[in-house]
């Protein structure tokens, strides 16, 4: 490869990383807005989250096309190969996260009475933690920081813990008063979506570790948990 074509390739890799960050922060915004519209019962914001999912899909396809073009034209090897593969994998997780945010916004739009949320402080907290995880994992991606990615991976446990709290509380509320069942089921789904969102973020963390080190986390440690 001539040095000028290498320079162009480096620029294209920088653009790819940039686009991934733009997509990532759009997805972070989606998580924030989805829970905000739920808590504030803001139907307009819910509508916006549902619409913004199309923008995330658009980024997904744009980065996908760009990655495939780089495979075809640059035949990347070594860290270039891993960087582009990682981009292709990460966008799938980001896109799924945005879908879950959309699902939460749809729930918010359906729920006429979100009064049960009051005893469920764990739900906004889960969203808060997920946003931090997402921000950190994108930071880890940009800085090629394995230990930060590993931290993100560990943080998932506290999301799981909160999911179990929500589950127990809701079961109790539904058992004690059947009128809570409709709202309770909807909010249980919301908690489930947030728990899945955090799992997808750990997948991203796993890919960042792969991109930097050349091996997957499952080969570093034997306590892997990210499911597809």
């Amino acid at each position: 490869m001539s040095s000028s074509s290498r320079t162009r390739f480096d620029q294209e890799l920088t653009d790819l990383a940039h686009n991934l960050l733009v997509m990532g922060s759009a997805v972070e915004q989606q998580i924030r807005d989805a829970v905000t519209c739920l808590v504030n019962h803001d139907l307009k914001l819910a509508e916006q989250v549902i619409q913004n999912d199309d923008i995330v899909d658009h980024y997904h396809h744009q980065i996908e096309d760009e990655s495939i073009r780089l495979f075809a034209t640059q035949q990347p090897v070594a860290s270039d190969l891993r960087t582009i593969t990682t981009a292709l994998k990460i966008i799938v997780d980001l896109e799924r996260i945005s879908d879950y945010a959309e699902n939460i916004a749809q729930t918010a739009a359906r729920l006429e009475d979100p009064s049960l949320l009051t005893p469920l402080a764990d739900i906004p907290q889960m969203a808060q933690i997920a946003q931090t995880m997402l921000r950190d994992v994108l930071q880890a991606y940009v800085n090629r920081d394995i230990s930060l990615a590993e931290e993100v991976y560990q943080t998932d446990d506290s999301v799981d813990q909160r999911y179990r709290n929500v589950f127990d509380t809701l079961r109790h509320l539904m058992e004690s008063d059947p009128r809570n069942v409709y709202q309770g089921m909807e909010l249980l789904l919301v908690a489930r979506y947030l728990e899945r969102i955090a799992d997808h973020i750990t997948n991203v963390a796993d890919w960042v570790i792969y991109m930097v080190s050349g091996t997957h986390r499952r080969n570093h440690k034997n306590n892997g948990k990210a499911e597809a």
Partner: protein
Amino acid sequence: MADALQQPALAQPKLAVHDLNVYYGNFQALHAIDLDIQEHAITALIGPSGCGKSTFLRCLNRMNDLIADARVEGSVLLDGEDIYHPRVDVAALRKRVGMVFQRANPFPMSIYDNVAYGPRIHGVRSKERLNHIVESSLRKAALWDEVSDRLNKNAMGLSGGQQQRLCIARLLAVEPEVLLMDEPASALDPISTMHIEELMISLKDAYTIVIVTHNMQEAARVSDTTAFFLNGELVEAGETEQIFHAPREERTEAYISGRFG
């Protein structure tokens, strides 16, 4: 089969190079190279021009003996036996470890005589035996179908890619064990290159192949092991998949991804 039973648990490398240093006069071209070359596999040597790939290749069948001021230190074991031992018959060694060069160099004689050349030198006289060797060598070199009706035509009339396959057939005719190929496809068009690459892959079950190539994609496509040389040093050697996916050395990464210079 008995053969399989006799296979040792950890296969002995076909060629074991240890602490190899090569000098041209005062200039040291290779520094303390250690490399095992596995049997029935393709080993690719990569690295920038002048890093010592051809020098290394020539050490494997003592072609450096032919260079007046070249001096070789260290050991090269072929099936466990030192090829630099004074009692080694160099002609017999070069029959076992043959070389194909960058520029196809057929002799200006018929296709048939090119292939029969080596066996004749080694004393094969029977017409029937020679016919058999010529046909089977040309078949192994994937050239038979293209030349079987013009074996008595001059080899210089073949295309570049055909000439290179003829040179491989000429080598196979003396029944070597190791094939050394110094940029065998670098002067060829993409289709001929593909023929040579397919040929190498088809030959590796029966031979041990060491190839020098400038073409990263070629190394990645055909070889099992890749060794990266730089300034006369072996920077890194490993499974080709590992070298192109996650090299251990930054200098390897820089070279294979075109970040050098």
